[in-house]
């Protein structure tokens, strides 16, 4: 997922507007498993 985000970043994207379902648990997961490692890298 992070690699894909990097592809968008390389394309010039600096914002992703996302939807999830079920939203609360999947957003929590995305924060922990995608955003945190992404921000730390």
């Amino acid at each position, binding site marked *: *997922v992070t690699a*894909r985000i990097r592809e968008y970043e390389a394309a010039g*994207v600096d*914002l*992703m*507007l*996302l*939807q999830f*379902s079920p939203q609360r648990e999947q957003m929590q997961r995305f924060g922990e498993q*995608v955003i945190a490692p992404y921000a730390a890298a």
Partner: protein
Amino acid sequence: MRFGYWMPIFGGWLRNVETRGVDRLVVLKALAVESEAGGFDLSLIAELNLNDIKGHRARRSTLDAGARGGGGDRAARAHARRAPQLPLPLAHRQGAVDARQHRAGRISLNVVSSWWKDEASQYGAPFDVHDARYERTEEWLTVLHRLLTEDTVTHAGPLYDLQGCVLEPKPSVLPTVYMGGESPKAKEVIGRHGGAYVMHGDAPDVIAAKIADMDGPLGQDFSYGVSGYVVVRDTSRRRRPSWPASSTCGPPPRRTRRTRTSSPAASSSRRCRSRSTPSPTAGCAPGSSARRSR
């Protein structure tokens, strides 16, 4: 990269997943607070009079509920505003629901030009088509900018007429204006008035081409966003759809729960609408701002 999310004011994004019985206000408030801790920067709250996802008569939460939900300092809020359909400055008053946030620069605007005809005709709002949408948008944004920066505004234009209008409080930071649209007229107006261009979740190479196409008239600070629907699971196999790839509208209802409760890792674009283009990752622009902006 900044990460934003659509506030689920309609109850949820899947038409075939039942959300009745869920205390939506509790969920919205929790999301607003938890999302900041989770690293999200932006919450997009659509302003609609009808429920776009669950049907006209289904409940949808109000802007106030979403806007008041946040407790933290970081996340900005963007309001998808079908600005051109609303009178000024009434439309903007809603954005200033929490003047404290407004002054702190936590509010931005996603301005959408004539998106939902059915709603417009039900509510007696004008519904412009083609270039006329952007003529209205442009005049609306021009007036709004003056209202946010000038003490008293008098404006006599083809579409809006304001005599000595006062709008307070003023924001400490002008709201970023997010817009979408692909027509030449749309891009022209976005280049003049927008601070960010939001697109459907097409594949990265398609997005790169769209950005290259926009780059000319815009400054370095201009932001580019894409909409997407994310499925993160523990393995690629687990996130695979359990319905045919040719499907454009998601799985049959009975399989949905299985898909939801499996535990898969990759992002995919399974929640499609007929007008959206699926792509491998941040996929169909769902009820997305890009879509709303057309």
